[in-house]
């Protein structure tokens, strides 16, 4: 019994029952399938998170973001600049207590290098409703190359708890045809 010492003293020499053995083999193979699936997706799949990131400081990062905003601002909305950067360019998104800044306007089917970094605490980039979730840290400039493939209005929710204003931290991305 499980609460008493094994009845067969040399328990490590007991043979294993066939059903158990078969299950162990199946479960092991399933592990391999799942392992190769991740690798396969790196080759064949469209959604892989980049490994590209740089050390930065809030000041350096903010300077880059401001430069892009100045160069490509197209209008203002609710106190936020709306930026329409050229396709293929580097776009900077600032996360800070409690906003995603600026608002981005991207073109459908075009590819952008979207940078994200935090000015203060950790935040969570959660692009909805498409549902992409990425952690944003202070001191790290994360670069994600994305290709919006649907037009419309997208919200950036903050999904890493960042204090009392966490639930007010909403950003916006417009994808235009």
């Amino acid at each position, binding site marked *: 019994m499980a609460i008493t010492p094994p009845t067969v003293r040399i328990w490590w020499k007991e043979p*294993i029952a066939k*059903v158990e053995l078969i*299950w162990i083999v199946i479960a092991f193979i*399933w592990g391999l399938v799942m392992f190769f699936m*991740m690798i396969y997706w790196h080759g064949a799949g469209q959604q892989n998170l980049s490994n590209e990131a740089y050390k930065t400081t809030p000041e350096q990062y903010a300077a880059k973001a401001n430069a892009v905003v100045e160069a490509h601002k197209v209008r203002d909305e609710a106190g936020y600049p709306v930026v329409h950067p050229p396709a293929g360019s580097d776009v900077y998104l600032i996360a800070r207590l409690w906003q995603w800044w600026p608002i981005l306007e991207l073109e459908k089917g075009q590819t952008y290098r979207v940078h994200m970094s935090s000015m203060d605490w950790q935040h969570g980039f959660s692009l*909805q409703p498409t549902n992409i*979730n*990425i*952690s944003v840290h202070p001191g790290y400039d994360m670069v994600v190359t994305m290709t919006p493939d649907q037009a419309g209005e997208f919200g950036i929710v903050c999904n890493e708890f960042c204090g*009392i204003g966490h639930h007010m931290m909403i950003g916006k991305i417009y994808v235009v045809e």
Partner: protein
Amino acid sequence: MAITAKFRTCPSTGLKVHDQAEKLIKANAVAAVVFLAVGGLFGLMVALTRWPAVHLLPADWFYLVLTAHGLDILLVWIIFFEMAVLYFASAILLNSRLAAPKAAWTAFGMMLIGAIMTNVAVLQGNSSVMFTSYVPMKAEPHFYLGLLLFAVGALIGCFVFFGTLVVAKNEKTYQGSIPLVTFGALTAAIIAVFTIASGAIILVPTLLWSLGIISHIDSLLYKTIWWAMGHSSQQINVSAHVAVWYCIIGMVLGARTLSEKVSRMAFLMYILFLQLASAHHMLVEPGISSEWKIFNTSYAMYLAVLGSMIHGMTIPGSIEAEQRAKGYTNGLFEWLRKAPWGNPAFAGMFLSLILFGFLGGISGVVMGTEQLNLIMHNTLYVPGHFHGTVAAGTTLAFMSITYLLIPLIFRREIMFKKLAQLQPYCFALGVAGISLFMMGAGTLGISRRHWDITFADSILSFEVPGTAFLMLGLNGIFAILAALGGLIYVIVVVGSVFFGRRIGDNEKVMDVPATAAVTQYGSAHTVSIPGTVVLVAVFFTAFVLYYFVNWKYLAEVWPLR
């Protein structure tokens, strides 16, 4: 000490019970239940706040109460109870004295003071940082100090456990190898040492930082080391509750495991493949290479998962083999139908096994897949997953074994028997609901730890899908059921422990069935467990289908590289 140790002999099991071990088990279990009650109430308040139609608490209280819920229930309840399990699995099951009762009492005291200190810090309002306390968000120093005290206390408890194993071996209190349950507990304790070491490595600098002595802690480094503790501690929980499952089927049914070798190897895998730095919490962090993520989440994780999948067959398999040997041999499932469903220890154990596998296990593997994490990270899917593992799995397993500990260790008769019989079903249904509906909301992109999905106070607006409101409403309703199940548990335990009929010194309260009822291994008999094979096949099919459905979901989001 060896000479002065006082023992009694348990009339039901024939085990020798060391008086100090018994007292320590009681103290730890009682402390655990108190924190479960407090933490569970907090959980209900959180769920009722997330139910948009109710929206119980204001935002600051919501984040405060959520921090307290995570701490009190994930850390304090579970680890206090694990201490009781460790002392039980060593001193009691091995007929031994506890190695160092004074150290064990010191451990208990430190854990209690630490838990109270951290709770005070949280309730004072300046430490609503969640139990993960990610830097650079800062809590008060006594928040971290309390956690450290608690952790060091638990570490001392683990060493008392190791010491007891040594004492039992030297004093030859048992024959042959340690029992499987003790082996499982040993696995848990070994992992605990690794866990607590990681915890100290990260919490000590964080404490110094909150005191202003250290000026900066890198947030990514913090997260990596924090999860070396945070994840491994979940591996402790799995080892402990699997040991508890084996213990319950042994004590209630007299079932022995199908194969000692396989079960022990499966436990060993938890140690060997403890995920290094727990990569699956770091899948969407900046600057971590895909190779590292894939290695750590596959080699390191799938073999630990394999361990759980093995237990997932051996445990129902052992029950089936035992029941068939008792003559319940009709059809595929007579053994299961005629199982002691009216015994809350057994019912809770079996529900815990099923829910852990189907809800917690499958979702955990899916979410821990490098790319799939992109569509789940930090959504409500995450709490949905771990209420399947720690609430439905660990908590329900620990609740179940309490129904055996009360008559055997507290020596009181269970009060309110009818309520007690109902309890596991009520709690299981409730937690299964919250687990499923939080996962549902998460799949719709709803964030965890979030006070207001309508974003009413923000400058920019965003509308979440209407079904999300439905999911959170259903979550609230099932939360009430879960809380009710928790409340019944607390009432039954407190009632029985303080007011239950005392059980006499020579009174037998249960028939712990004799061993060797089951087919012997290595002989011509082979086990035949067709019912279990069907259960496992259903599980495996669900797993595979669900896994690939999520790849399909992933394929629909914006291309990224």
